[in-house]
């Protein structure tokens, strides 16, 4: 596929370089561990993602993929290790030369450039489609209402829902809801977009319409994306890199062509076989 090997240069100029090089390490996990009870979900995990890179996380359920996304969204905290985005620690801040647990306001500031699209869409049912998309730009970013509405209409047209501005989420199909959720996420001008199994709750036809929208977006923006998905063809089309997770560790990290055509690790081979059999 085209686009899988383009160099990561253009999107990085805006990033000021601080704690680490913002270029190849726009997102950086350093020795991150997380356990739920006795279940180790992430085991001393280190990896990084470059600015503008699109990385798909694959692996069996419970292997820690979604945990990675949820940590980046600050819905979960690591037990140990650090996570940084654009050179700033997510859960830590420096005070008096020491790294201490970050305050809520620090987390909120770093989080402002990260957003997420969820498996279950999670639109706000009390708001019509347009307001779902304008609410954060107006009340979080402080954009003027008409400007936010203008941009929201553009984004909703982009996802093919320019006609549904006044509908409530409950009046839309799952695929339409998910496309609104994508527009809502793009409306806050994120640097990092997290896509957590965004088509798993949809039947194949509706999933296809969502994936088409995401393909377009991947082509036209330079937002850094982390995706967890079981749609392997889609992953191959849009991502620059694929990380294979198993038991809280990355066991293979390669471009999609190589990963899907000639997986090296035995676990990757069996996983890919089972996923492809399924679909």
């Amino acid at each position: 596929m085209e686009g899988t090997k383009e160099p990561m240069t253009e999107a990085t100029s805006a990033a000021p370089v601080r704690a680490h090089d913002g270029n190849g390490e726009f997102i950086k996990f350093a020795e991150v561990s997380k356990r739920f009870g006795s279940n180790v979900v992430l085991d001393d995990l280190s990896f990084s993602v470059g600015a503008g890179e699109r990385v798909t996380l694959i692996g069996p359920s419970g292997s820690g993929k979604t945990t990675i996304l949820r940590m980046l969204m600050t819905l979960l905290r690591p037990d140990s290790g650090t996570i940084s985005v654009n050179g700033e620690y997510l859960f830590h801040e420096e005070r008096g030369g020491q790294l201490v647990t970050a305050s809520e306001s620090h987390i909120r500031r770093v989080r402002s450039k990260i957003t997420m699209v969820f498996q279950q869409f999670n639109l706000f049912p009390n708001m019509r489609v347009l307001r779902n998309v304008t609410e954060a730009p107006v009340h979080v970013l402080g954009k003027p209402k008409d400007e936010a509405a203008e941009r929201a209409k553009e984004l909703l047209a982009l996802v093919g829902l320019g006609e549904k501005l006044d509908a409530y989420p409950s009046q839309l199909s799952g695929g339409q809801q998910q496309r609104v959720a994508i527009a809502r996420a793009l409306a806050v001008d994120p640097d990092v977009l997290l896509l957590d199994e965004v088509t798993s709750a949809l039947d194949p036809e509706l999933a296809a319409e969502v994936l088409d929208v995401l393909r377009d977006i991947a082509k036209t923006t330079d937002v850094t994306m982390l995706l967890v998905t079981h749609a392997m063809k889609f992953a191959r089309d849009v991502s620059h890199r694929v990380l294979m997770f198993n038991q809280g560790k990355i066991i293979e990290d390669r471009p999609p062509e190589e990963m899907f055509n000639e997986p090296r690790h035995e676990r990757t081979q069996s996983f890919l076989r089972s996923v492809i059999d399924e679909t």
Partner: protein
Amino acid sequence: MSGEQVGLLVDGALFTLWLTLGGAAIGLVLAFLAGLARVSSSKVLRAIGFVYVEFFRGAAVLVLAFWFVYAMPMLGWQFEPVFAGMVALGLNIGAYAAEIVRGAIQSVPVNQYEAALAMNFSSWQRMRRVVLPQALVAMIPPFSNNIIELLKASAVVSVVSIPELAFNGQLIWSGNGQAAAVFGGLLVMYGALALIFTIIMRLLERRAARSVGRQPDPGWWTRLRRRSEVPA
């Protein structure tokens, strides 16, 4: 029944209405304060909410009314009986309703909270813009029970000489001795007041359902019209 007696009943009904509305207003404010306190991340606020709910849920309205009208003056605060009645009713019903507020907030799916966080709303914005509007829909049906409880409890505060419906009813009865007529009439009047509140709350409920994009059940008026459209 003489015109004078009818006047007494009407005046009494107005006092009852006034007590109920005042008590509901005080109760609503307290319910939201205490309900939000109980889901707060602050331990102190949670404790305050807990103590308020547990204390005033168990406090008899009758005793509260006595307390405000007869005991507080001894401590230097003079309460006007009607206001004291409203406060007693409001404190009590607020404690019940606080639990409804808390339950409704906690019934909003956690994924709504997560989506609001992904949009980087502040914790207050998450509550105010996402969680509360959804929780409100779940609060209204139990609130309408509460307000009818409140209406009936307002009869209790007649003991501190508030000339509301029950008080004036007793006044008329002591004058004419016609218990069946007087108390039968009172029952009908309380029933009618309750019906008014039920209808208002039902309208609010439908409006709230619409505000989250839910199609409310067709009301009796719509059903009636539809039935008449069916050709005989």
